[in-house]
């Protein structure tokens, strides 16, 4: 962990510099588009990890924040005629507000119940979008096309870069991250140390939702078309889970790496091996299953042998009641 803290930012700095000058060198708009999307997934994965990896709450409805951001921007731009720059923060804000409202009750749930409640909530939001007028229902919404690849590349890069920096500061430097981890490890015990889990979880949930909503907004403007199945479906949530678990939970670099590799794998397969499209599903599925068996700590955790890997908790909760005097 020490090593990632000191060397990580340096490597990251070089990476960012490279990414910043890239569009000046590469003019292939397809490559830029792929990179733009890859960066977006990194952003989604790290934002997801705030609540999942650091706080220990697996949010299966993460995609809802993305969709809410996308829809907010589409509605503000197309129906209220707001310019993009004015609408964009509103996308993040809307996601944050939903996180706040939804978080108060859901964050009381634990483990699988939280996972499934958030998933049910995201499904309900999707159904809502299908059933109200102002979202266009199943027809979705179209935004005025502004197809400038460099613009979206830089916008995505800056957004995700800033998100990364802010999260990195809050989670790895400031007390906040350590407090979240305390909650992940033992919420009841954390209370005795003066931590207010309800408040901290709320903050984490909102912190996870905000950038996700903004990314959803950028996505909407970039792709120019959104509908309930593509922005409010399971896609974002599912991918985020897979990327984060594959990369390694509870860090920022792990999910980023996971997002990058999985997205690269998908894209290469998709672009250059498209004759084997169904094989792709089989391979992706097998890859996920096998990686879980062989790198249970995620790629980052395995590569960098993190000591702080959450160890196996024996029989959860049950034994605690029966065996008040726990031994080893």
């Amino acid at each position, binding site marked *: 962990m020490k090593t990632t803290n000191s060397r990580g930012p340096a490597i990251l700095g070089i990476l960012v510099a490279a990414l910043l000058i890239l569009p000046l060198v590469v003019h292939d708009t397809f490559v830029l588009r792929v990179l733009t999307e890859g960066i977006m997934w990194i952003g989604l994965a790290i934002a997801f990890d705030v609540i999942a990896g650091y706080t220990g709450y697996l949010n299966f409805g993460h995609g809802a924040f993305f969709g809410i951001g996308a829809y907010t921007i589409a509605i503000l731009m197309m129906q209220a005629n707001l310019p993009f720059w004015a609408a964009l923060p509103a996308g993040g804000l809307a996601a944050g507000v939903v996180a706040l409202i939804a978080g108060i009750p859901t964050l009381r749930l634990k483990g699988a119940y939280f996972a499934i409640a958030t998933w049910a909530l995201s499904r309900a939001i999707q159904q809502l979008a299908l059933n109200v007028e102002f979202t266009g229902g199943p027809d979705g919404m179209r935004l005025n096309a502004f197809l400038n690849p460099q613009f979206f590349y830089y916008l995505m890069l800056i957004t995700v870069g800033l998100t990364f920096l802010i999260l990195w500061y809050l989670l790895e430097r400031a007390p906040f991250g350590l407090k979240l981890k305390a909650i992940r490890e033992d919420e009841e015990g954390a209370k005795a140390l003066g931590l207010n889990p309800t408040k901290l979880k709320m903050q984490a949930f909102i912190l996870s939702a905000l950038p996700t909503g903004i990314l959803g907004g950028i996505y909407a403007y970039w792709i120019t078309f959104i509908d309930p199945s593509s922005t409010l479906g399971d896609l974002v949530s599912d991918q985020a889970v897979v990327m984060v678990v594959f990369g390694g939970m509870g860090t920022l670099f792990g999910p980023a790496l996971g997002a990058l590799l999985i997205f690269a794998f998908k894209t290469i397969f998709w672009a250059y091996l498209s004759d084997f499209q169904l094989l792709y599903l089989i391979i992706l599925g097998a890859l996920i299953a096998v990686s879980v068996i062989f790198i249970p700590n995620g790629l980052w955790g395995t590569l960098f042998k993190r000591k702080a890997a959450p160890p196996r908790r024996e029989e959860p909760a049950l*034994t605690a009641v*029966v065996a008040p005097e726990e*031994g080893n």
Partner: protein
Amino acid sequence: MNLLDVQDISVNYGDIQALWNISFSVNKGQLVALIGANGAGKTTTLKALCGLIPTAAGSIHYQGSRITGLPVHKVVDQGITLVPEGRQLFPKMTVEENLLVGAYLKRAHGKRAQTLKRIYSIFPRLEERRTQTAETLSGGEQQMVAIGRALMQDPQVIMFDEPSLGLAPIMVQEVFKVIQELHREGLTIFLVEQNVHQTLKVADYCYVMENGRIVGQGTGKDLEADQSIREAYLGF
């Protein structure tokens, strides 16, 4: 012949070696105790004996046949059982169900009604609480269930891992009474305890462990007299 014969076993937890070439033996009908500081490896030894964790080296023989590497359910099938640290009851099951799971093995299944009666006569408290779920019992009662559950298996060797831990003094006496009773009835007993005073009093023979190694052995009286043991394990 020794009933239980342990030769040079080692156990690792990942990169950490917890046991280093441990050897000892237990005779039939004996009450043998194992004492040692926290983290010395006592629990690890017990777990290795009954197959809950794998051994890296060495061998364990029971009644002359090798049981090293057998999975736990096969080991207990041979007649060895463990009353684990922290009791490890089945929390949502009633007292009686917990006891009946003890008679899961074929060997014990046939005579379970009979054994149950016997256990209720040893621990009348449990009969009173037979329909209460295990998680709502007090610590001492839970310990009784754990012992009763092990007895339901009709074992020949019964191993205890810190049975007095966290019990009120009156319950500690109770538990030691039961252990001695079982010993008198002819059961072979292997006892791990932190309550060294009491343990040395009841044990026929005793091993001392430190940092994953056996560092001393002798009868209870011998060890109690041993100055270094007194200093290290009896305190005050």
